[in-house]
């Protein structure tokens, strides 16, 4: 099977790659581009560990084909911090210990960032439902939800 040539933008940089027609964006990111910060927990869109932004929309990269990224813009966990400065969500997750084993953390951070971009003042219920597609088995979500709510508050204050 011949491969597809794809030109795309990842975390602001132009990237070109070849991939199989049936290869997922997740596999491209992890296996071809060594962007392993995006994780695979299920491969069926049920756990959110592979969350990335595709043209500003939150998606499970295991459910997107690598070929579909042609001409699009992708944001992954590797692009979340601004150089040495962590994104406020990254900082707050650390501050509140909203992470234990941390395999789900990149997905949660990407998903939470997309929530705050749409809704800078979410209620606890809105946070819980927005993040319901991201599974965490360690924390019981308590500290994650608090970290997102606290970050939203801080970001509103400094806006």
């Amino acid at each position, binding site marked *: 099977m011949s491969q597809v040539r794809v030109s795309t933008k990842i975390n602001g940089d132009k990237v070109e790659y070849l991939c*199989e027609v*049936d290869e997922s964006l997740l*596999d491209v990111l*992890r296996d071809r581009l*060594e*962007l*392993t*910060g*995006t*994780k*695979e*927990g*299920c*491969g*069926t869109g*049920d*756990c959110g*560990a592979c969350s990335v932004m595709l043209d500003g929309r939150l998606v499970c990269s295991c459910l997107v084909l690598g070929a579909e990224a042609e001409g699009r813009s992708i944001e*992954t*966990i*590797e692009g*979340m*911090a601004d150089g040495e400065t*962590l994104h406020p969500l*990254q900082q707050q*997750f*650390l*501050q*509140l*210990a909203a*992470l*234990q*084993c*941390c*395999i*789900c*953390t*990149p997905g949660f*951070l990407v998903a939470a960032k997309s929530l705050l971009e749409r809704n800078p003042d979410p209620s606890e*219920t809105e*946070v*819980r*439902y927005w*993040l*319901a*597609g*991201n*599974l*965490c*088995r*360690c*924390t*019981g*979500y*308590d*500290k*994650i*939800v*608090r970290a997102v709510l606290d970050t939203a508050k801080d970001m509103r204050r400094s806006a």
Partner: protein
Amino acid sequence: MTEQTALKREFKVVGTRPLRPDGIDKVTGRAKFGADANAPGMLYGLILRSPHAHARIKSIDTSKAEKLQGVKAVVTRDDFKRPDRADLIDIWINVMARDKALYDGHAVAAVAATSKAVAREALRLIKVKYEVLPHVIDVDEAMKPDAPILHPDMRTEGVEPKPKKASNVAHRYEFGHGNIEKGFAEADIVIERSFKTEASHQGYIEPHACLASVGPDGQGDLWCCTQGHFMVRNACAGLLGIDVAKLRVTASEIGGGFGGKTTVFIEPVALALSRKANRPVKLVMSRNEVFRATGPTSSSSIDVKIGVKRNGRMTAARAELRYQGGAFSGSPVEFGAMTSFACYDLPNVQTIGHDVVTNRPKQVAYRAPGAPMAAFAVESVVDELAKKVGMNPLEFRLLNAARQGTKSSYGPTFGPIGLEATLERAKTHGHYSAPLGPNQGRGVACGFWFNFGGNTCVSLNIGEDGTVALTEGNPDIGGSRASLTMMAAEELGIPYEKVRTVIADTGALGYNEVTDGSRVTFAAGLATIKAARDAIKKMCGRAAKIWDIPEEAVVWENGHAKPAGPNAGTFKPLSLAELAAKASATGGPIAGHFEVNADGAGVSFATHMVDVEVDPDTGRVTVLRYTVFQDAGKAVHPSYVEGQFQGGAAQGVGWALNEEYVYGKDGRLQNPGFLDYRIPVASDLPMIDTVILEIPNPGHPYGVRGVGETSIVPPLAAIANAVSAAAGVRLTHLPMSPPRILKALMDHQRG
């Protein structure tokens, strides 16, 4: 909220909440987990699995797969010789099926190829001929005399005389003391009930993954996500016939385990493929494989009988527990039988456990293995008895609670323990007096776990600039780098930021047991403190040399060596950094070491309180409020202790309300994915409040007790008690899914 009840010692670092040292890597995607490593010339491995619950494997034809372009190795049972070590036999059979496939998902063959696509195609080309055999899934069915037998050579151990007939009961256990008949005769009220729980999976988000490389010189390297890389090394060396020292295992970051990563599955297969192909091989499980072929915990069937006087005092208690552990012996029924009544002071107690095999994947430890199901059964009866004698459930438990000096139901006499403290604190907590609405109910339950210590080895190296490298051997599954760094800083008297903790590979340290039994903060913490003391002793010796005074005349205070005593003289104290700078001139590098098989892990207790609402039309349960009260001995990093309490409670909510292995009549698992095996998501749960109590463990220099496992023991029971109160009918079968609750409500209405 941390509440000190007895601790006297003042700490500087321990008890604070610094950022975890591995934090930046974890929030930026830089941390490397099991599937994140690659190697030059790497091949992709895949495993072919049995679609049958029980089948004789007549033949395996791999010839077509081997001829496929890009396939570099195929392995089957013929590539795994019977190991010498008896304790590896079951693992050997589990890693690659021998004459029979024992469950849906049992590995039958494996391939390594130049791409995932080629590997997938190669699996399709392997032809396996099966003779399908009758199977058994349910624990009670498996114990019947006419049940299909899994292992013709299995004779029940622990029964005298030893049975002559094969059975699916691998072992019978018995614990207790007193005279059980006399105890029940003395009771005014006796309640006896039967319970069932379904198998639940640990549900770690990271599937098993490894990268193996074995050269023609017989030396091997393995990278994998595991709770214990020393265990992986020893098991793989034994299974592949490699010398232990020639296999180096490096633990990746681990994306959750909860007990499920305390054995090997794919690692020996990847090594065998690599050895055959003479190339590095990466093997990563799919989620489907994780559910079908790794170890969930046991399903169970339990009878409980407890007798009390009219005044509420228990006179006797008995439990009979039947756990199926999948296709091999080793269900945690022994722990279930030991922990059943550990919360109570009982004059007469007996527990009997049956370890049963069925055509399911080999169970693996799951957080306080065996205890949550037993606590569910016992605490449900305790709840009913409290109501019957007209006492509130906390007072009833306090009246019967185990305390210091109580002879436990499993043998030993308890030292200082925190059960009463958790119950007393629960009584005064605002949660307990909060009002409840219609269709709402409140439940409480207690739980116990032993905690563990075990073999541990750490090194602590003093750097020439006065910073410290702590080298330990336990994968950090939830913040243990932080707690160990804190204990090293505390003992040395230097800032937290001056210590870096590294998890070393198997070549760097002596054997460290797996990260299990809630052991790391206790045992590796103890070893860290002792290694720091070893380094301090050496630094005091260097100061004595510099000052030319006896070593005994030097003490260590606040990170400095100081002269002390009548003849020590008056020298300016030397800091750790100053001594480190002079190390070369005073005898060479300075390092502290400690090796121990740690005992003295303090047992721990918790009380959980939960409010739920039951929708009478749909049977859906909503968890409204949850509070955990648990003894931590000493909370080193309170945020991560709270995290353990919350995580255990959340897993308990899933187990109690929704999670379940569902099998079809064909013995195949029907729900091997996160869509159909639904673990709690953020919108299913409320905030989970925590109260940390600190009753110091005399077995640890700072009083630490393990905290990871106890938190999953009470929730099944607490939620069952709350649901039963809300629904007005006793629920005895977990999970309490909407159909089960609706059925119970309808049966109750019909009378």
